[in-house]
């Protein structure tokens, strides 16, 4: 199936475009800062940046309502910012400080917020898929109309548990949206080197789950597809699959030299498909906003990100007694 085009621009308000611009920019600047702090040794271990994929999570969050849940993999900073978690708490978790969402005990890959219905942050590739279906099962059991977004990558899409979950999610009509963030590379292995399947959403059809491929670099297309999926789920019709065609500009993690693709390929995506530039063009091209308007937002975002970095550096390391807490509820 061909990637979807953006819907009629006239359907989008200036406010909504500005909101998308602001949210995507926050993720990008936050991630750039995280990369910088990693280079300074303030962030340790694994750190997977979301730069390039911002439109996916921002567009889908625009379709949610209170009580909807989300769960994702280790490339999770963008999802947390998009669902309203505080940049300071996320950054402080990256630096392993007590002000972090997990008191410094989870790190980049393991953050959660009950309050914002963000269920992680999972380091085992594909594990979040049945977990997400389980969150949906709980909502169905309780009889509400909330939905769960279970995000995973093209790499995770080859895990067996994804298909066990598809089978049960359709069998039990669970209100879960499977969001495949297809950035074309599972660490260093391209999709073509890992499967003969032409599409990933198409595999769901074998289980009876409808789905579609979406231009994941176009936040408006993402939102439109998300609305369709959410309506399907809320109506009790079971799961839905969205294959978001997207691209990560950075390596798989901070330690990835990215030799498996050319500089030209990356540059071409940045030049031609960048999600933030797309919204900027819509705002300025249609005369809705001026360069000055957007610069003001840029400054505002920069302040938020710098503040989060300062907080993350200033927040103390967890007390040594924290070693022994939270093992049991």
């Amino acid at each position: 199936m061909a990637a979807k085009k953006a819907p009629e621009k006239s359907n989008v308000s200036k406010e909504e475009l500005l909101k998308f611009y602001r949210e995507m920019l926050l993720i990008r600047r936050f991630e750039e800062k995280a990369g910088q702090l990693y280079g300074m040794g303030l962030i340790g271990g694994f750190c997977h940046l979301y730069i390039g994929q911002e439109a996916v999570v921002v567009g889908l969050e625009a379709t949610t309502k209170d009580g909807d849940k989300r769960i994702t993999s280790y490339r999770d900073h963008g999802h947390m910012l998009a669902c309203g978690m505080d940049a300071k708490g996320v950054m402080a978790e990256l630096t392993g400080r007590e002000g972090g969402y997990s008191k410094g005990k989870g790190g980049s890959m393991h953050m959660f917020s009950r309050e914002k219905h963000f269920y992680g942050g999972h380091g085992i590739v594909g594990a979040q898929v049945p977990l997400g279906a389980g969150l949906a099962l709980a909502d169905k059991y309780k009889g509400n109309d909330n939905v769960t977004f279970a995000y995973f990558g093209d790499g995770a899409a080859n895990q067996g548990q994804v298909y066990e979950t598809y089978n049960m999610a359709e069998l039990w009509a669970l209100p879960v949206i499977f969001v495949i963030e297809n950035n074309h590379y599972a660490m260093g292995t391209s999709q073509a080197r890992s499967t003969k399947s032409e599409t990933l959403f198409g595999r769901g059809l074998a289980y009876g789950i409808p789905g579609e491929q979406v231009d994941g670099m176009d936040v408006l297309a993402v939102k439109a597809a998300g609305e369709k999926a959410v309506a399907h789920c809320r109506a009790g019709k079971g799961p839905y699959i969205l294959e978001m065609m997207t691209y990560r500009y950075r390596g798989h993690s901070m330690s990835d030299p990215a030799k498996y693709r050319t500089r030209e390929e990356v540059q071409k995506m940045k030049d031609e498909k960048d999600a933030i530039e797309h919204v900027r063009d819509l705002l300025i091209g249609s005369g809705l906003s001026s360069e000055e308007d957007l610069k003001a937002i840029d400054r505002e975002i920069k302040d938020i990100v710098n503040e989060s970095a300062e907080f993350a550096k200033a927040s103390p390391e967890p007390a040594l007694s924290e070693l022994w807490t939270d093992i049991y509820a």
Partner: protein
Amino acid sequence: MATEVLMPALSPTMEEGTLAKWLVKEGDVVKSGQILAEIETDKATMEFEAVDEGIVGKILIAEGSAGVKVNTPILVLVEDGETVSDAPKAAAPVAEAAAPVAAPAAATPAAAPVAVVSRASADWPEGTPMKTMTVREALREAMAEEMRANPNVMLMGEEVGEYQGAYKISQGLLEEFGPKRIVDTPITEIGFTGIAVGAAWGGLNPIVEFMTFNFAMQAIDHILNSAAKTNYMSGGQLGCPIVFRGANGAAARVGAQHSQDFAAWYAAIPGLKVVMPYSAADAKGLLKQAIRDPNPVVFLENEILYGRSFEVPALEDFTIPFGKARIWREGTDVTIVSFGIGMTYALEAADQLAKEGISAEVIDLRTLRPLDYDTVLASVMKTNRCVTVEEGFPVGAIGNHLSAVIMERAFDYLDAPVINCTGKDVPMPYAANLEKLALVTTADVVAAVKSVCYR
């Protein structure tokens, strides 16, 4: 030539059963493949087919007889013109069969209750009326009671609903609680375990039944990485109130892939609680506690114990706290520490040793995480000798860990090295004689105790 038809073994662990119903009568012509009778095992009611052809000469075991031992002659087939007197002598085994019982459908064959030789248990008030029930019934009652009390408790797993449970633990629950709360799953352990963990985060209290814990290996990532660690990784935000339960350890003659005790594996993981009951009272009280616990609990049952009967307090509601061992038998010469089916050998050994003048104190750990070190250490400080008993492999066993703790904290009290009686360091063989050799036995325990007592 007349042919005797024998009481069949219809499951790996069946030793006796109930002859629920005859579908043939004397004088009937029987074809091979024809259903002769319905036989009730501890797991299910099964149809029993004829292998040989012939005429039913005599029915040797009356309909409704319970406790009919496997291999007891139950019917004689004769050829045309032959009489039963031509048959091999069949009278003697008949006498062994129990008399017909009033309600054969409800009967569950069970071994005699195990006598409680310890002082009164502190788990329930003295003078509490007791009732006899099997471990199977105790587990079922525990789940049913907790499901009645809490609408968010649900059971999921393979064959838990319409099939009534592969081992009949969930028998009748679908009828009482309906398919929303008793959920039959496809055979997809990692998938449904992940779903159950997510459902626990979403506010439910799932009980996941693994047909056996061998199959939980497919799902161990979700038990460890998703259920056990997330409360810690989330700074205490995301507790996971879930119970993983099912048969663990060797059954009988099912080979290496279906016979493994995972107690030490799960007990090694912080964030999990691990329970391995022996008696029916403990099975009930600990399972109710497990369902109420806000943490993931691995609840290790044993297929051979399912059909065993014990005295259980006849209380409307009781639980047994985690981390509290039970002293089954007080003694002065040696401490035998065990759990789960290992208690069978520990208690048998203590009986034998008593006859030889050795007084053994027998401790049932009941929960492996948390583990009641204090009770074990206090006992060892009294007896100065210790033998541990478990079915699992010898390397990285619970007994290894206990030995280390005893060495660290009670070294000066020991009069002999601690001996760990375990299963042998081999994959479980199928052949009956080799399987027997691979498992820990009462004789092993007796020998170990004599060794530490220098007898």
